[in-house]
């Protein structure tokens, strides 16, 4: 009798183990070390290099605390001014499937830190490392690419996007669009 209770407890436990990663609250972790080479290097013509995935970085888009912090810092560092709530303004939208400089989290990190042509400032030194990763994780969630159970459905703000828990996964293409406007 007792062993049956134990087994069922363990089963429930295992299914929830996945929750551990999602629920960790790391207030000041070591930010993932990025290689010196930018993951998005563009050359005239030819195929872009594949993204070098960083395992530690991937955790950010599965962790609810980091995504929530990213949402807050998205507002605090004023990403809204150019990207609105993901629909884009003078900056490109972040919730669609067109990624000029790549939509993987490492590529988004690079875009934020390095800046990009046509108006994206470089935030190196302006936003601490870990916070850039958190913002990148939040940007991933805007396109439906972060873990669905880690994402907040909405903020306490005006309704401006579909609930983040209901945005379907958007394919991420690492290559720039074929035709420029």
């Amino acid at each position, binding site marked *: 009798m007792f062993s049956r209770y134990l087994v069922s407890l363990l089963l429930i436990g295992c299914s929830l183990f996945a929750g551990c990663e999602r629920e960790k609250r790391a207030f*000041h972790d070591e930010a993932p070390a990025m290689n010196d080479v930018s993951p998005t290097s563009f050359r005239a013509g030819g195929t872009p290099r594949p993204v070098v995935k960083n395992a530690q970085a991937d955790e950010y888009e599965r962790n609810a605390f980091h995504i929530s912090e990213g949402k807050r810092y998205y507002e605090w*560092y004023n990403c809204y001014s150019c990207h609105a709530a993901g629909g884009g303004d003078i900056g490109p939208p972040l919730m669609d499937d067109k990624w000029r400089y790549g939509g993987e989290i490492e590529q988004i990190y690079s875009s934020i830190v390095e800046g990009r042509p046509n108006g994206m400032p470089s935030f190196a030194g302006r936003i*601490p490392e870990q916070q850039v990763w958190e913002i990148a994780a939040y940007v991933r969630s805007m396109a439906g690419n972060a873990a669905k159970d880690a994402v907040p459905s909405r903020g306490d703000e005006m309704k401006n996007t579909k609930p983040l828990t209901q945005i379907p996964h958007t394919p991420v293409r690492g290559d720039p669009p074929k035709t420029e406007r």
Partner: protein
Amino acid sequence: MSAHPSTWQRACSAIALTVLVVGCSGRQAALDPAGDQAATIEILWTLMLWMCGFMYLLVLIFLGHALWRARHVLSSEPVPHGAQRPAERPLRMALAGWFGLIVGGLIVLSLGSFFIDRSLANARLDNAIKIKITAAQWWWKVEYLGETPAQRVATANELRLPVGRPALLELQAEDVIHSFWIPNLGGKQDLIPGRINSLLLTPRREGEYRGQCAEFCGLQHAKMALDATVVGERDFAAWRQQQLLPAHAPSTPEQLRGHEIFMSGPCASCHQIVGTPAAGQNGPNLTHLASRRTIAAGARPYSFEALRDWLRDPHTIKPGNHMPQVQLSNSDLHALTSYLDSLK
């Protein structure tokens, strides 16, 4: 009884003394009123304490007598319903008296509460200072509204009030529900997103008091405090004038270096220092940081070392708060601290 107090007596008197000292004085004590509102509430408290204490004593006496009486009664056949007991009539009369006493007492207490509440609501507002307080996780944004916008003083985590003048606080919240409470001065009021509440405090005694958030607001609810200082009218005017001045310019090379670090790093994105390019609104205003009694909403008394520890890693003092850790070399850290320490 021996001449020396027994350990039991010593323990009892120690506890009684502690109770008196802790309960009746302090810079965050409701029963040590330094303002009109707290004093009015203390009147109600005294009334309640005596009346409720009296009723409690009656209950204990009745219970004690019932148990005392039982000593001599032997157990025998039980008394079922229907048997006439000689004590039934006097007990019924006592019950009626008890009922009357309770109802009468509650009427007195309800009326007392109502009239005290009314007097608090009708408190004088003339010549009140208007202060807008916005609570965020886990700090207080304080803005003294002046005659004109140019007279507006913005500070954080501190409240300085002139004695004798009412202060009308307009309370708003930026994120979650908080509660503004300075026990020595008055009762509390919640700050609720989507609502504007107000609180009137009329301090009567100069001194340094402490307020604290009184509605659970997340990780660092425990360390969301406020320094309230009540000063004379002249000192208050002087303080206000000084707060209107822009920040001190850096005067030593180290302070200059610290200034540069502040402006070129993440700091300027969130904090404002009037008179410099830094105009961030997300975090506390730092223009006169070094003139405050505490840092990080009461987490530590202000000192160079405390400030340096905070800047090195805010999460060692207030784990989970919204200021990110910025990696700085030791010399950069010292320079930044020197600069901020100069902002008197």
